[in-house]
């Protein structure tokens, strides 16, 4: 059913479900949300399956007009939800009457917001996913004038509205985060001093960041020898270090393979923290944990982090 009309849009505004799987061996990036925790929470708040498509808003703003009564939720960081004179808090679901305008306004403290609608946005899947991958021509970006369709909400609207998600208990968003990593498969391609530099320095995010990768700036990490690697598969969170010693973290739209040594990989539970770091502002530090610890944390957060009914 017709749900929202897009009134204004700027920046990088796309549909994202939980990602496009099954085509990485053909060179198709996974895509999906930059901040999986926020995407999952927005869906939970509106009573949708956790892999339903949401709207990711980054590097700009968006205004929507409700075509009918609906329940929306916005999660993420660096945004404020305005409805005329009111401001809805993030990480809550709220009732919106037909005709109301809802503005996602950029402010400091993060990069990406997720808008979910009860019933989920109906987007024609391409290669089994509703995630937009603009560079590869998969899916469309969202334009002013678009009218967005949604499925049937999973419950009465009044039961889905005014719920909140206890984000601070599970995801410590911060502008000086400690990002946990697992040592990378090419850790031995770096000098011991280089590894120590990586773990003991503060990095900032370069202004030239996008859905593909986050270039970090800070003390250069020393390689033992050449920075060329025979290309191999990589994932979101892989930290490649080219010859200049400045790390690049692969993000949602990253290529499936890469040819620089990977010093480490950001663990799933830290990816949202990194995704929401502000260019030139955030002070980023890395800390090593084991793969077993990382997997336990991910399982725990998935089991525990749940929406609270009013």
């Amino acid at each position, binding site marked *: 059913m017709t749900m929202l009309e897009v009134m204004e849009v700027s920046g990088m505004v796309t549909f994202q479900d939980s990602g496009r799987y099954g085509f990485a*061996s053909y060179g198709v990036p996974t895509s999906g949300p930059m901040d999986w925790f926020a995407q999952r929470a927005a869906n939970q708040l509106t009573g949708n399956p956790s892999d339903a498509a949401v709207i990711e808003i980054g590097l700009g703003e968006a205004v929507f007009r409700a075509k009918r009564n609906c329940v929306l939720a916005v999660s993420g960081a660096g945004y404020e939800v305005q409805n005329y004179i009111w401001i809805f808090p993030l990480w809550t679901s709220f009732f919106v009457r037909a005709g109301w305008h809802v503005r996602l306004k950029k402010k400091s403290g993060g990069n990406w917001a997720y808008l979910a609608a009860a019933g989920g946005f109906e987007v024609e899947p391409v290669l089994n996913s509703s995630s937009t991958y603009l560079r590869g*021509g998969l899916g469309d970006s969202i334009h002013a004038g678009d009218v967005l369709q949604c499925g049937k909400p999973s419950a009465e609207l009044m039961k889905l509205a005014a719920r909140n998600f206890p984000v601070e208990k599970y995801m410590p968003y911060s502008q000086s985060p400690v990002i946990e990593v697992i040592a990378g*498969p090419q850790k031995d391609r770096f000098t011991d001093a280089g590894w120590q530099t990586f773990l003991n320095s503060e990095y900032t995010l370069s202004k030239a960041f996008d859905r593909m990768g986050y270039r970090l700036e800070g003390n250069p990490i020393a390689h033992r020898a050449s920075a060329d690697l025979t290309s191999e598969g990589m994932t979101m969170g892989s930290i490649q270090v080219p010859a200049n010693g400045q790390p690049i973290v692969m993000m949602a739209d990253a290529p499936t393979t890469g040819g620089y040594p990977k010093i480490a990989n950001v663990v799933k539970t830290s990816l949202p923290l990194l995704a929401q770091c502000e260019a030139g502002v955030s002070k980023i530090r890395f800390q090593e944990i084991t793969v077993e610890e990382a997997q336990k944390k991910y399982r725990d957060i998935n089991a525990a982090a749940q929406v609270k009914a009013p």
Partner: protein
Amino acid sequence: MFKPLSDSALLVELGDKIDPAINQRVHALNALLQAKNIAGIIETVPAYCTLLIHYNPLILTFDQVTLWARDKLTQVDDSLNRKPRQLEVPTRYGGASGPDLETVAVSKGISAADVVRIHSEREYTVYMMGFTPGFPYLGTLDERLAMPRLETPRTLVKAGSVAIAGSQTGIYPLDSPGGWHLIGWTPLNLFDPHSASPFLFAPGDVVKFNPIEDDHA
């Protein structure tokens, strides 16, 4: 040989260089893993000398995936005789289709016709796919055609362009930037996301270029 790459992927290293025999083992292992669907295994990415296995850490642990891959690796030698798929790629060489053909010929001290002959007489394997959806990394290119990448990559390379760099040749599936030398163009569509079979090539395929005349396509 079995290394964690993040908390949701296992990297299996079968070597450390571009080598047809190593790559064949990668594709053999990949075929063995594909043959059996295990809950929690999401997908695999074969590359030159490694296989990356993406899995769901809510379902499988690193140790479980490693055990499983290790067991399959013991069966690789028996499955090396699998016959790969063969594909022919009609290619218009030179002119507007291959603007770098003359440059390659001059810098290698051979004729443009020699470049075409050397490039099209050999069979190549799709060692891996990557860069953009549907891009095949083909090898191994004859040493007589080995060229470094362009110093300044082009901002736009036309879809279908046949290109060479180092010991590799490839075909651009989409209009995209590119740093390889363009020697020809094929009318084949390498990537159509709306088709039932979206990709022309798959890793492990065997490919041969077939020169066609200007007015053919």
